């Protein structure tokens, strides 16, 4: 279980997170929604220890990871995967080398075994045979999917997705959602998904949280969110420009 309590973070004068409280249960998919620039990516980076908060805690399976040293963080990260918003592929390595990075470094698997795993993952994200392309030869959506393949290559228990389907066509979006659901079914993965795609959020999210103004202002199942009386929630899911939510 992941418990985030009172997490706060500022960059210079800008307070991005102002006391985030959130619980993510094992095997659950939590979707985080929120306007652009509200700090969703910053929140994900705190959960995997890339950023240190100014205050508050991130407790994963009972341990506060904000006080972890490098060694402990690394062993935690072996159980986690992250898809970056920008995909963050290593641009000097091929697609295969990108996906194989963790496997090569942390497992004793043979080159042949690793090649098989890579090809299998590429097939899962709809890019069979892309093994030897360089990231610069890929489209934006393809990069995202290679990033996804890299994030799931080590079959982690916890996966953080930063906008996994942004830039994908509706059919591919649906296919990625199916992949997400099957990973969850097969491996019991716990995931936190940041997305702007409501259809996708409803398909995969066990619960949805709305992040606004540095805090989680609403959280609940799909139905609870859709039927929420909160005007912030209603404005956001209807996509209305007028309402209590102001653009930053």
């Amino acid at each position, binding site marked *: 279980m992941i418990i985030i309590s009172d997490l706060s973070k500022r960059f210079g004068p800008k307070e991005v997170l102002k006391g985030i409280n959130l619980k993510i249960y094992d095997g659950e998919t939590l979707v985080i929604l929120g306007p652009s620039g509200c700090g969703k990516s910053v929140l994900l980076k705190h959960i995997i220890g890339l950023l240190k908060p100014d205050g508050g805690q991130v407790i994963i399976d009972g341990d506060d990871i904000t006080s972890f040293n490098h060694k402990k963080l*690394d062993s935690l*990260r*072996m159980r986690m*995967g992250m898809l*970056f918003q920008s995909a*963050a592929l290593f641009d*000097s390595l091929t697609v295969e080398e990108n996906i194989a*990075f963790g496997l090569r*470094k942390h497992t004793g698997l043979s080159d042949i075994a690793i090649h098989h795993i890579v090809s299998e993952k590429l097939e899962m994200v709809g890019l069979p045979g892309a093994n030897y392309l360089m990231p610069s030869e890929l489209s934006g959506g393809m990069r995202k999917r290679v990033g996804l393949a890299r994030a799931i290559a080590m079959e982690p228990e916890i996966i953080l997705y930063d906008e996994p389907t942004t830039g994908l066509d509706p059919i591919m979006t649906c296919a990625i959602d199916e992949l997400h659901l099957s990973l969850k079914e097969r491996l019991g993965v716990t995931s936190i998904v940041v997305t702007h795609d409501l259809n996708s959020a409803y398909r995969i999210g066990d619960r949805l949280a709305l992040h606004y103004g540095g805090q989680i202002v609403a959280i609940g199942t799909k139905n609870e969110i859709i039927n929420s009386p909160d005007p912030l929630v209603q404005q956001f899911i209807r996509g209305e420009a007028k309402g209590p939510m102001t653009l930053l």
Partner: protein
Amino acid sequence: MIAIKLLKDLTNLFGSLTILFLQSIYWTIHGIRTGRFGMKNLMEQMSRIGVDSFPMVALTGFSTGAVLVVQIGYQFAQLGAQRYVGGVVSMAMARELAPILTSIVVAGRIGSSIAAELGTMKITEQIDALETMATDPVDYLVVPRFWGCTFMLVILTVFTNVVGMIGGSIIAVHQIGLTLATFSDSILQSLKIQDIVGGLLKSMVFGGLIGTIGCYKGFTTEGGAEGVGKSTTGAVVLAIMFILAVNYFLTVGINNFNMAYLQ
């Protein structure tokens, strides 16, 4: 006020560079002890550094050797001291000019490209991605570049010396009118092994500086493409300043050592 701020910045810079250096040493020892030292990465960096710097270093070495012989050759010939030309030129090259010029060329070509490469990785979150895959960026990125620069600078300096002497001998024979034998005998008589070793020791230190500073500038890149540009030029300027400053102390140190133990 400005002086205090400058002093503070300088102290921070020294501190950060020292920490990065110590981290590289730590990860090197760690890699060797666990048998997981990234030899392949190191080889890749060394060949890249060699290939990229080779033409410029060759040109610099050749022309420096040639020019030195022109300058020294005529003066010495007028004094009837032709048979010292080779010795003086080779000593100047081995002790001072080869290490300094090679390092400055490599700082321009390699220091900048390391800073640009790592800076781009920083702003495109590739360094964050490395960390999420339980990989230390110093281990994976800095160690091979640090050692690559250190080793390659020694090799390139030897090369500069050789090319410089070839350039020098061509000028000595065709312009100054020395025989090849006079020129080379003079080198063999005057140039001592400690001249060469001292010069190579310098270039080793300069190589380490270039690698560390390039990586440091890369890691501290902020902003977009503009930030990468700033880091790139910053790395070159900083590396050359450090090389020139450190060279003075190394020269004094090596001279003192030679005088105390080798004469």
